[in-house]
């Protein structure tokens, strides 16, 4: 595509040149013709005047010479108009010339001119007649005539040179025009390509300013604008991605709703909370995503009142999830004033802790009050007179004593626990043989197991490495676990204890029972103080509710850990992982 601008500029030049030529043709040509004709005529007049100084006779004698000298046809006419001689028509008789306008003019003024079509020569002729006088008497006339063709010919000659000159001027000027047009058009075209790229959204490379003129300035300006615009876009994009990163990085889940109450924006935090794919959230209603009646109720309430709503929502199909949701209208959102935003805070952990604390206080008071009530009750009965009944007194005191012991155990456990937690318990780590301790524990618990007809099986291979542990604490741990196992295994059940080396670094002790088991949901909370799988389960079994808590903390103090796996109705397996003792550290 050749630039239209280029053609416009070039055509203007062309027209200009043609116009100059036309002006010459129409104005100059007649003028030149006239000037040349007059020049020829004046030369002829001059020649004629000089010739007229001669007498007629002399002239007659030298007609041919005169004609040759003046390059004209010479006609000599006497006063009556009779042609005496003619340089071109020597032998033919010619008619009277007195009536010819140039001769008439010469008769009156001494000289005359005329341009006429000569019938004799059949061409346009230029005539000059001069009167030949002698003492104021006209003796005759000398007439010079020249063909106008000759004049035309010389004009043509002149014209040829003029056209040649014009042509010589036109070629370079057109060439110049061409160059000029191209010089202007091509940078403009490149600028145009630049702006078109911008329109397409690309970032074109900056253009070199070809010159220092307006075009160059324009190029520079456009370069500047492109740069500035891209800087703005870059800043906006950067700002946007910063905001998005912050939005996505938030722990809180955030979503916004469009006019149809469908989710049109949400962050990663929200996606993590609901655990759904992007496509399953975008464009859905909050109810479709969360399926929470509480959330829907709050949402409906918000839509009615438009007042910010705080609500706690329990979600969680598989794992428990408690969210604190805040529903509010977004203010200052471009285009849409009625936009709704929901912010979700995950308060699951907080709620669990809160509940743990509340449970702990409730549990401690309950655990302490139960034996206390018994003690007070029996002592009151004794005070009211039972003290005199020897037999009853013994029984009552025994019961009170039992309860006091239980209270003591409870306080001991609590103290132990708090000591371990505060790190005040001195642990005496030595390399110990775990099988030995297991054997001792089994001996201690044997009567209990036998009482419930529970078979205890052990599988303790010889090659178990020594573990780094505090002997007494390990004893306590194993006693607690085994006690639990016996407690929650129905009569005639079975308990199996195994120990095995695990990956060289740890020794795993597993106590598996065929007891009632623990529901999956309760497993993570087992180490909590006073946490009971069922409110009524273990208290009747005589536990303090601190056993597993103590085990968990003691295991942590050993640098090991406890894992509990269970299937309700089938049994529970407690795995204890102890670190293997390193020989050099042992000494």
């Amino acid at each position, binding site marked *: 595509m050749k630039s239209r601008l280029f053609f416009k500029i070039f055509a203007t030049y062309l027209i200009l040149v043609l116009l100059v030529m036309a002006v010459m043709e129409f104005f100059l040509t007649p003028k030149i013709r006239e000037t040349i004709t007059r020049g020829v005529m004046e030369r002829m007049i001059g020649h004629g005047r000089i010739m007229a100084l001669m007498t007629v006779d002399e002239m007659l004698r030298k007609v041919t010479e005169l004609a040759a000298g003046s390059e004209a046809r010479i006609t000599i006419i006497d006063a009556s108009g009779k042609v005496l001689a003619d340089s071109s028509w020597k032998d033919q008789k010619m008619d009277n010339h007195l009536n010819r306008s140039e001769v008439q003019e010469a008769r009156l003024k001494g000289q005359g001119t005329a341009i006429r079509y000569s019938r004799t020569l059949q061409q346009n002729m230029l005539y000059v007649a001069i009167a030949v006088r002698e003492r104021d008497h006209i003796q005759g006339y000398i007439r010079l005539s020249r063909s106008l063709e000759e004049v035309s010919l010389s004009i043509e000659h002149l014209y040829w040179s003029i056209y040649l000159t014009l042509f010589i001027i036109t070629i370079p000027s057109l060439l110049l025009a061409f160059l000029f047009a191209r010089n202007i058009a091509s940078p403009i075209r490149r600028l145009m390509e630049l702006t078109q790229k911008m329109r397409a959204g690309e970032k074109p490379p900056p253009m070199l300013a070809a010159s220092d003129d307006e075009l160059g300035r324009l190029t520079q300006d456009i370069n500047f604008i492109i740069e500035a615009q891209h800087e703005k876009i870059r800043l906006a994009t950067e700002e946007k991605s910063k905001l998005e990163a912050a939005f996505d990085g938030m722990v809180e889940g955030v979503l916004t709703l469009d006019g149809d109450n469908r989710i049109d924006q949400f962050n990663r935090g929200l996606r993590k909370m609901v655990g759904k794919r992007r496509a*399953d959230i975008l464009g859905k209603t909050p109810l*479709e995503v969360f399926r929470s*009646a509480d959330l*829907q109720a709050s949402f409906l309430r918000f839509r009615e009142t438009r007042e910010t709503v705080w609500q706690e929502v329990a979600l969680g199909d598989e794992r428990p999830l408690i969210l604190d949701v805040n529903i509010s209208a977004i203010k200052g959102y471009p285009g849409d004033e009625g936009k709704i935003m929901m912010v979700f805070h995950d308060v699951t952990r907080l709620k669990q802790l809160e509940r743990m604390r509340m449970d702990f206080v409730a549990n401690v008071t309950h655990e302490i009050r139960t034996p206390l009530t018994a003690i007070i009750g029996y002592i009151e009965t004794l005070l009211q007179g039972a003290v005199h009944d020897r037999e009853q007194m013994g029984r009552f005191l025994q019961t009170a004593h039992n309860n006091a012991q239980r209270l003591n155990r409870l306080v001991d456990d609590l103290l132990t626990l708090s000591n371990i937690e505060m790190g005040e318990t001195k642990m005496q780590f030595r390399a110990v043989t775990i099988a030995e301790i297991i054997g001792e524990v089994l001996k201690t618990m044997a009567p209990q197991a036998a009482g419930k007809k529970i078979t205890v099986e052990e599988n303790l291979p010889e090659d178990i490495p020594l573990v780094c542990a505090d002997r007494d604490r390990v004893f306590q741990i194993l006693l607690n676990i085994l006690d639990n196992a016996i407690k929650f295994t129905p009569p005639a059940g079975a308990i199996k204890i195994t120990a095995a080396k695990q990956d060289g670094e740890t020794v795993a002790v597993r106590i598996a029972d065929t007891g*009632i088991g623990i*529901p999956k949901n309760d497993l993570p909370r087992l180490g909590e103080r006073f946490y009971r799988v*069922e409110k*009524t*389960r273990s208290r009747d079994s005589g536990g303090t509710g601190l056993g597993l808590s103590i085990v968990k903390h003691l295991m942590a103090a050993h640098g090991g850990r406890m894992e509990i796996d269970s299937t309700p*109705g089938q049994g529970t397996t407690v795995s204890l992982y102890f670190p293997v003792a390193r020989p050099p550290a042992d000494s």
Partner: protein
Amino acid sequence: MDAKRHTSKQYEAELLEVKENLLYLGALVQEAIEDSIQALMERDTELARKVIANDVNIDKLDDEIEEKCVRLLALRQPAARDLRFITTAIKINGHLERIGDMAVKICEKIALLNEEPQLKPYIDLPRMAEIARSMIRQSLDALVNEDVELANKVRREDEIVDSLNEQIFRELLTFMMEDHRTIHRSLLIMQISKTLERISDHAKSIADMVVFMITGMNVRHQWPFEGQET
């Protein structure tokens, strides 16, 4: 429904509203089941009474959905897909409302149970309740996402609840045979178990209808294992 837009925006909105309300009802019913089982496990009579009181909301929403469906049928004369959706919605609505009533029944039994000491630790009951609840949730998920696969999965899960119910029945029978004082409590627990089993039946029916709605095929009286996985 999302794939095919209707010419009338109003009509579209009304259909979506029915769907939304159905989900809301489903959520309310699920909550009722969750709360009842929590009331049972924690012996929380207060919570049981709350569930009974909240049933009013379920009934109200049930009426509302039915009215909307009837109005849609009368005024819009829906055809094909929409007709199937609306008739299915009316039926699902009825099932959900019944489940709500059953949660009330369970809570009434719980209130009675809590007046006596706990008979035994509950292990299978919460499992049953959880399965039944998730069946409702999944059948509604299948409705929203038009997921036949999921609906068929729900239809198969009914079996698990049935067998758990039988297990509880056998277990309680031994309790009753051993000690006649446990008969009252055992019967109450049995009724709760039976009610949970019926809830799962309702959930299965919902899944059946979701399959019908999506495929146009009536599977209500078909064995759910047929033609699957074998």
